[in-house]
């Protein structure tokens, strides 16, 4: 099988799910005839019919609300929220209903909410948000953010198969990353991967920042600095064993995400490392993220977002520490 883009991999994964289980439904704004604004659902309505792949009115809260009802009726809804910035009007249905419904009723909510997220696409306001921390803090939800086509394919299979609700964040700036994918390879929720081995500093990333971390590692090599890159893949549950395993080797960590640092998910990771890994640490755990300001106009996004230089700087500091 020749290499496919992440966009195509997600499309194939949805096809597989729709084929395997007749209870899987795909719906949202413009997912039907148009195939989604990113063409992720391209051809699905033609292949599976308007009953199973359908457009909804422009109403995010209802999109999630009907997903709850469909789940109660025995379906496995896979709703799409068109962009990260538009998930907020569904926040009550997600936090108070989707996340808590099983706890309330004993009835599982096998709902996978797909959300293209992150910046770096030169878009207008509200199209480049990184809202993951709002969901990792919400008990009852699982939160996933793949970084590669293969993981996107496999993690989406795991998310749809899981009995619990999953927020599936797709790094839209990486939709065109290409690689060969192996449809039978399984990637369970809650397992991170070492994306690149190294010995000096552990760089922890997920979704769109993994490839930046890998670039940084390549650049570091030239300066004889060795970075180990961990791709979390799942944010909640969080795979601390894999993170600490790496720390035992490097004793230093830099966390990278696009969301603003203050109150971001990096804080949770850093706090856990500094607690469970207290004795392992040779230097403070630092975080490289978006500025503590709203996402800026496109012209300025590269300066707002984490980049190779900022990662290398923090790695340098960590290595030089003490």
């Amino acid at each position, binding site marked *: 099988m020749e290499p496919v883009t992440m966009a195509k991999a997600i499309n194939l994964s949805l096809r597989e799910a729709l084929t395997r289980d007749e209870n899987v439904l795909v719906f949202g704004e413009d997912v039907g005839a148009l195939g989604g604004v990113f063409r992720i659902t391209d051809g699905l309505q033609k292949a599976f019919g308007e009953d199973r792949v359908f457009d909804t009115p422009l109403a995010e809260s209802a999109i999630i609300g*009907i997903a709850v*009802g469909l789940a109660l009726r*025995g379906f496995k809804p896979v709703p799409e929220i068109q962009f990260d910035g538009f998930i907020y009007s569904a926040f009550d249905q997600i936090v108070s209903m989707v996340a808590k419904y099983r706890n309330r009723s004993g009835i599982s909510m096998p709902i996978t909410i797909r959300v293209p997220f992150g910046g770096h696409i030169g878009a207008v306001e509200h199209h480049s948000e990184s809202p993951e921390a709002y969901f990792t803090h919400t008990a009852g939800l699982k939160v996933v953010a793949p970084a590669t086509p293969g993981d996107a394919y496999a993690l989406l299979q795991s998310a749809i198969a*899981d009995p619990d609700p999953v927020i599936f964040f797709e790094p839209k700036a990486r939709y065109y990353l290409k690689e060969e994918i192996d449809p039978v390879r399984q990637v369970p929720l809650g397992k991170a991967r070492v994306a690149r081995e190294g010995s000096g500093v552990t760089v922890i990333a997920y979704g769109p920042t993994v490839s930046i971390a890998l670039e940084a590692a390549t650049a570091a090599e030239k300066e004889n600095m060795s970075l180990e890159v961990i791709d979390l893949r799942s944010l909640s549950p969080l795979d601390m064993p894999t993170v600490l395993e790496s720390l035992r080797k490097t004793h230093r960590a830099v966390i990278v995400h696009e969301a603003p640092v203050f109150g971001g998910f990096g804080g949770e990771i850093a706090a856990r490392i500094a607690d469970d890994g207290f004795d392992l640490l040779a230097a403070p755990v630092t975080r490289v993220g978006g500025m503590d300001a709203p996402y800026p106009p496109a012209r300025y996004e590269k300066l707002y977002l984490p980049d190779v230089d900022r990662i290398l700087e923090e790695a340098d500091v960590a290595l030089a520490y003490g």
Partner: protein
Amino acid sequence: MAEVVRTVETEDPVRPLFSPTGELTPEARSRIGLDPEGLRDLYRKMVLIRRVDQEALNLQRQGELGLWGQYLGQEAIHVGTVAALESEDWIFPSYREFGMAMCRGIDPAEILKFFRGLSHGPYDSRKHHFAPLTIVVAAQIPHAVGFAMGSRLKHSRDVTLTTFGDGATSKGDWHEAMNVAGVFKAPVIFLCQNNHWAISVPLAKQTAGSIAERAQGYGFPGIRIDGNDVLGVFAAVRAAAERARRGDGPYLIEAMTYRMGAHTTSDDPTRYRLQAELESWSAKDPIGRYREWLQGRGILDEATRAAVEREAESTAEGMRTRLRSITPGPAGEAIFGRVYGNPPDSFVEEREEFESSLEGS
């Protein structure tokens, strides 16, 4: 322009049953389709749930419940609605539908676990086709629409009913759900229990418009009816349900009633409403009116009436006893037991730590 002007073309089997002011017509009343036993049973259920409502209030005052929200005055809606539906038809309630839950055969003592702070969802929704009580106003309405869409996809003949208050109609979720239901012609009935108050906010400050008339804006019919007439409620829900079963889509019923009690036991209505209003509504009490109607037709004799009162007493008594005998489940299960179907390792560990810490203490 003409080609884009759209109006509600679907036929409306409910409207002909009612006068312009929402009263069930005499003809429709005479053709209600219930035998004397069935007619008596509506009375019986209203008496039972009212007595239980009173008992729950007492229990709260005695400190046995953390909170109670009376449905006093709304019994005709609770009883008429459930009687009009088939048992497979799911109901998505708000938080005041204790009476409906009882009519669905759920043990009232079990439901009281919710108000006793023992469970967020004490009964089995799938067994009784009765969704969990929903505290977040209007949040259950899109669930009902999704469920009904699912029934269509499964080519099932069941219909879904969701009920909510006048206040709920101000929420975005109410609107989004109504509109989506119209687009997908979902077999769902929207039942507004307009009891004139949302805590302290009177209907006139909740909306300047008419709730029932909003339905046409979503492409399906709606009607405002007398919600204190159990037969009117029965007839409207029955007709709307048959229509939905036929595949003609959603229907909105605005049942006018009055919240005779406080919003909940935490509320003090004397701060915002007048006794006079209450009295004018007592005259329209759903049980009294129906009793007279039954008696006028010789369908309800004194013996039966007394028997119903006795049954109500023993039901209340039984509920009280069973409630008192409930022993709270273990904390570990109550806090962690139902959160995940596939609990993460870290979550399982947290639960184990929690449970061993309890043994510790």
